[in-house]
């Protein structure tokens, strides 16, 4: 119903939308030019030609994108669905003029050098002043986008805003038990223990789940409370970079100590007994059943659970600053990554390469960026004091990011630079309060932005990484579950990793990293 009414609203306002800025300075071609596009994403399986955003872009630039998506699907599995359509497209033999997708980086970096996609370095320098200007300010991002041959093969989606996940806690439970907000890991442990033993939900049952997580790797993230490291980027179990050196969290002594402590927490019942199998409904179930005490999860979506205060008396779920480790460090390991492996590329059979790169550049102009972030002026937002402000009826029409997908903006299969202002306008007070808290403390640490391998490096990576990762995860879970003692097993574990080629893998990663970012 919501979708219907939204569509109706758009139709009703289309007539009024007279593009005030249609003075032609953004026009790329005199005669309308049609380019074909493949764009598959879990939330918008094909490129809709009647998206209002596409209509406006068409008017401004003269370039029409024609949907030519192969293998459209809506599976959200990060590991299969997202590149399945790309593989099908490639296997089919015909590559459209433009290919946009999530998880496109590894794909174009493998097949671009083989000739499937057009290298973009020269094109950007000559024809894309806005993109070039952006990269001039962010050489790290430019480096991250490049393939092993030094060429860029796609224009990325660049998220804005720094914060992703935070620590959350039932502050009303703290109050009920007369506890303070935990500032150190020891205090945090004491709070969780109190949650476990002092019946904060007051139902007389020992049913509280002090710490829970929708994704069990978030539990591993807690090793940062003991100066360990877990995930080096927004990809779980990823490598990390510290002072230009590639490493891996699961090799550190802080990780070892953290796991030992987490195993203790687990056996003491401070961690959800079903942490590994509870799955994505954990947060929804444990919060609405008044059972869950604390988690590590996204600002925007988690703050929304405060609506439960209408059902659970006094319910208040707030973000708190990362507790300090024994050595006094406070870090928040998770952050919004600077550059996503999502975006769009130019297929090798494109006959209008220059027009296409100009079109890509359009989305980095002020008008293009606003279009990509906020939709169409007059339809979805109005300019107030020089800032785009969403119309109230648009904010009321359901989840804003979904509404934006439905009009063709905020597409991660499009290369654009996100504007965090779009999200602030519909984030709730608890999220904003939490973000402010995290801003004060400056807890974030640099992300590993990934590397592009040469064919030989790729072979080493393919041969070793999967095996190593599986082994590390196996050990990790069994330590936490109490079968095996991490302190006793540690030396054997490290030796085993070395025999699986860990050092070789790190060397390869390092050389790729140096090539990409060092020079």
């Amino acid at each position: 119903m919501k979708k219907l009414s939204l569509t109706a609203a758009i139709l009703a306002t289309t007539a009024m939308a007279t593009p005030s800025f249609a003075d032609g300075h953004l026009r790329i071609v005199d005669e309308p030019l049609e380019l074909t596009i493949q764009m598959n994403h879990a939330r918008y399986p094909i490129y809709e030609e009647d998206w209002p955003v596409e209509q406006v872009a068409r008017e401004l630039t003269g370039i029409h994108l024609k949907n030519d998506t192969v293998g459209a699907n809506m599976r959200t599995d990060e590991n299969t669905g997202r590149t399945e359509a790309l593989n099908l497209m490639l296997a089919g033999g015909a590559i459209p003029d433009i290919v946009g997708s999530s998880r496109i980086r590894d794909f174009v970096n493998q097949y671009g050098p083989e000739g499937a996609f057009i290298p973009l370095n020269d094109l950007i320098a000559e024809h894309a002043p806005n993109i070039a200007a952006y990269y001039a300010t962010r050489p790290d991002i430019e480096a991250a986008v490049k393939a092993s041959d030094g060429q860029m093969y796609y224009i990325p989606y660049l998220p804005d805003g720094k914060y992703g996940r935070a620590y959350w806690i039932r502050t009303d439970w703290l109050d009920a038990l007369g506890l303070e907000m935990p500032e150190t890991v020891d205090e945090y442990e004491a709070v969780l223990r109190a949650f476990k033993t002092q019946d904060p939900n007051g139902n007389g049952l020992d049913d509280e789940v002090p710490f829970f997580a929708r994704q069990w790797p978030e539990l591993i993230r807690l090793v940062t409370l003991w100066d360990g490291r877990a995930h080096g980027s927004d990809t779980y179990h990823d490598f990390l970079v510290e002072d230009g050196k590639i490493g891996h969290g699961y090799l550190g002594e802080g990780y070892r100590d953290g796991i030992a402590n987490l195993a203790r927490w687990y056996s003491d019942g401070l961690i959800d007994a079903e942490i590994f199998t509870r799955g994505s409904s954990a947060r929804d179930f444990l919060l609405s059943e008044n059972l869950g005490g604390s988690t590590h999860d996204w600002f925007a979506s988690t703050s929304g659970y405060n609506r439960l205060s209408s059902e659970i008396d006094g319910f208040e779920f707030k973000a708190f600053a990362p507790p300090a480790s024994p050595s006094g460090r406070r870090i928040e390991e998770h952050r919004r990554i600077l550059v996503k492996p999502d975006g769009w590329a130019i297929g090798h059979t494109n006959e209008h390469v220059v027009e296409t790169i100009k079109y890509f550049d359009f989305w980095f102009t002020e008008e293009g960026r606003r279009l990509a972030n906020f939709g169409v002026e007059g339809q979805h937002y109005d300019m107030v004091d020089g800032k785009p402000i969403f119309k109230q009826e648009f904010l009321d029409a359901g989840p804003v990011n979904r509404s934006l997908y439905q009009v063709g903006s905020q597409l991660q299969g499009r290369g654009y630079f996100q504007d965090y202002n779009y999200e602030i306008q519909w984030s709730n007070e608890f999220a904003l309060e939490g973000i402010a808290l995290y801003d004060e403390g400056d807890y974030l640490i640099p992300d590993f932005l990934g590397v592009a391998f040469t064919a030989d490096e790729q072979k080493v990576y393919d041969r070793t990484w999967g095996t190593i990762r599986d082994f590390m995860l196996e050990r990790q879970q069994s330590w936490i579950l109490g079968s095996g003692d991490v302190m006793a097993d540690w030396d054997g574990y490290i030796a085993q990793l070395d025999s699986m080629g860990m050092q070789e893998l790190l060397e390869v990663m390092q050389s790729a990293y140096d090539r990409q970012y060092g020079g």
Partner: protein
Amino acid sequence: MVDRNTGIGGTPVEEVVVEASEALRDRAKSYTPDSSWARTVDHFKREWQLYVMLAPTIIWFLVFLYKPMYGLQIAFKDYSIFRGVANSPWVGLEHFQVLFSNDQFIRAVWNTIKISALNLIFGFPAPIILALMFNEILHATFKKTAQTIVYLPHFISSVIIAGIVITAFAPTGGIVNIILGWFGVDSIYFLTRPEWFRPIFVGTGIWQEAGFGSIVFLAAIAGVNPSLYESAVVDGANRWQMMWKITIPSILPTILIMLIIRIGNIMEVSFELVILLYQPATYETADVVNTWIYRQGLQSGQYDLAAAAGLFNALVAFVLVMTANTLSRRYSQTSLW
């Protein structure tokens, strides 16, 4: 049982054969084509309906079985989707070397075989036993209801099945642990315990498929001549004796054929269910070839490696099915081919 000597309409078989061969001879006489080409054209003119009926099967085989075989060569190539099967360079047995130098792959092979063996030992007899039990239910409505109930899990998607299993075996509030609690057993986090994975997985498979699998055996039982049972009743056999001496021997050929087919699928552990149920903590017993391929090969686009592992799977299955078929033919005169 129809008398062998009474072929069509009470005419002895020999007569029918003689008549047919005479008819053929007559036809051969009346058609005397001057060349083999003419004879072929003539043959197609006469029998084209047969070929039309045959065509869908042949096309199906060509398109879905023989043509994909062409792609098997990527197991020996450094395959790139963009370059295509033909243009990717040969690398010989490199992928196989990668596979067999990987301890996790070897472990996955053994896990596959162990899970399949358990499946065979416990999962294969289950539908037969179920079918025999259904056969003993005399009350028609009760029988229908019971059958429907045990068929149902087959139609539930693996994702839901996995959800049910995870919930049932959950350490807090899972039905299994609640029941164990009544007997004073401490709650067990089953799905993270390597030693429990195989029993749970095989048990789930039986629960899901035994009912549906019993259909083929029920059909075989329905085909047993009822007078065999009547004769046995008069001879004094009880129901137990009838089951052992009549029902089971009568459906033995069906059982053997199903067994051979099953052995042919021994490397095909239903891997969606494994993926949904396993954890890194249970890789030790749960990781099978297909899940390993999925993690190592398909996740990182290594189709060539996946093809090599798949080829190895097929080879093992082929050897097993050949062996089973030969043994079955030798000892029970029943075989697939």
